[in-house]
């Protein structure tokens, strides 16, 4: 009898049940076509997907850190900014490669900037977790206060090291410009962002689903005590996860600075708000949820900014409220 119940539970949902959320999603995705010309719609969609992927890079770190460690990391925005500034310095250092016509040199400069930003910020993440965050596990109030304090320190350090002014972010030459695809202007860099976001998503999924370490991390999201009672050093695991989350924030910061063509010390706080919206929509601890949430936020922001510019900033808050009312745990909840 129990086996029958399980067989019922394991039976795939019906055709309609399975495809209804996707159908609703596609319907909403195509809805702006009613008020936007097709070519503009395609341009906005690419921009929205790119913005979504950039937000995904930031939000996935927030989501993994919260999902596994139950830590609300307000310093994530500052780590994001550090990533942007480290990349900025590398581009200045390699300015000949950045301005070169050679694709190889452009990609080389970009790769070095990405690796440097991720390594430096991952190290900052390790220090932050070991010195500060570890002391406040289990207390959200203290986490908010102490990571907010860390943000102030990290941002002030940026002002000391790089100065307080806005700077123009250099972008490798071949990452600039656009392609004309059947009279639709397709900017190059947003396509790079979309591909980068998809690659990061695939890599995270590969590690989480296909490696033992990833399986342990997913188990830890559900029951950290049980994971350590099974012989796994969760302290090492938590530090590692925090470092990976910080590195993702750095990648997001660098990529976003190249998208907006500027770096400034307070840039993190703007995108941290978006990241939290994405994570709440997607479901805490879920990487797929972060991706879907980020794409919803990116697309909605771009469509609404074109149709009703004054409502652009509020639309994502509205989406978040609606989703929270329907599914308080987000679109892809991860059980605790």
């Amino acid at each position: 009898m129990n086996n029958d119940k399980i067989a019922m539970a394991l039976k795939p949902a019906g055709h309609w049940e399975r495809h209804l959320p996707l159908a609703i999603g596609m319907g909403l995705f195509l809805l702006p076509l009613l008020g936007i010309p097709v070519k503009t719609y395609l341009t906005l969609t690419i921009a929205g997907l790119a913005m979504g992927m950039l937000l995904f890079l930031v939000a996935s770190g927030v989501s993994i850190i919260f999902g596994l460690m139950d830590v609300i990391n307000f310093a994530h925005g500052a780590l994001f900014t550090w990533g942007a500034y480290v990349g900025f310095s590398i581009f200045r250092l390699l300015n000949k490669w950045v301005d070169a016509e050679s694709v190889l040199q452009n990609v080389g400069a970009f790769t070095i900037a990405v690796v440097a930003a991720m390594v430096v910020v991952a190290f900052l993440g390790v220090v932050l977790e070991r010195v500060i965050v570890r002391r406040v596990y289990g207390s959200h109030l203290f986490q908010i206060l102490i990571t907010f304090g860390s943000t102030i320190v990290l941002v002030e350090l940026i002002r000391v090291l790089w100065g307080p002014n806005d700077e123009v972010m250099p972008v490798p030459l071949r990452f600039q410009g656009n392609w004309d695809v059947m009279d639709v202007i397709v900017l190059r860099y947003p396509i790079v962002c979309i591909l980068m976001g998809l690659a990061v998503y695939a890599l995270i999924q590969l590690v989480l689903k296909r490696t033992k370490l990833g399986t342990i991390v997913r188990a830890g999201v559900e029951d950290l005590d049980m994971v350590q009672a099974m012989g796994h050093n969760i302290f090492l695991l938590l530090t590692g996860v925090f470092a990976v989350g910080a590195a993702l924030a750095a990648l997001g910061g660098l990529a976003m600075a190249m998208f907006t063509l500027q770096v400034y010390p307070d840039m993190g706080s703007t995108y941290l708000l978006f990241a939290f919206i994405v994570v709440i929509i997607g479901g805490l601890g879920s990487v797929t949820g972060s991706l879907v949430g980020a794409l919803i936020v990116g697309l909605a922001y771009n469509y609404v900014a074109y149709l009703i510019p004054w409502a652009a900033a509020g639309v994502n808050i509205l989406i978040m409220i609606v989703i929270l009312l329907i599914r308080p745990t987000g679109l892809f909840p991860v059980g605790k």
Partner: protein
Amino acid sequence: MNEIVLAVEGVHTFIGRHHILQGVSFEATADNVTVLIGRNGAGKSTALRSIIGLLPTSEGRILHRGREIHKKKPYQIAREGIGFVPEHMGIFSNLTVEENMRVAMLVEDAATAHRLERTLAMFGDLRKFWTAKAGNLSGGQKQMLAIARAIVNDTSLLLVDEPSKGLAPIIIESLIDAINQIKEHSVVVLVEQNFHLASSVGDQYYILDDGTVVQKGVMEGLAGNQELKSRYLGISKAENPFGNEQ
């Protein structure tokens, strides 16, 4: 005399401000199943969580094969060869049965593969639902998975907290069979309120009350002691659902 595998010596444990264990002492010896029994809130689960390190002890010592473990972290204690099955089973619901087992395996060598085969032979349903999400299993199957995870490593001491909780009598019978097989390879410390299960697998017992051990002895002796059973387990002869003398 049997080797003392686990020695708990005058252990005190607090949860918040509450002084739960107040000098608990007991031993688990090789080739035996030691049962901790007592009313709700007596400190049985706290004792197991203190042994595995999930609750810090404030006083006393815990020794595993003569080595102190009470200052170690839970993962270090688990690596000493101590398996733990908590009261809530601790199943990772979003992971498949296979993934639950993989998380449990500290090394994946030939010996572990052999133990896995032995475990799956014991709990056939786990093989049947190997790729199913653990959250979709029945209560009994989840309990089997929880025990399987704890014995897939080279476990010398198995701590099991109320495995019969919420399970149907027929499932409890298969649990009794399983624990009787496990005791051939590992020393078992069992927290159990179901007297039928406790007496079917247990060799020695300790009764806990208000955070201290108030009585100990061999299981056969307790089966005939109606007064103790009535006072500390809240069961009388009339309530015995199995109708036999226990």
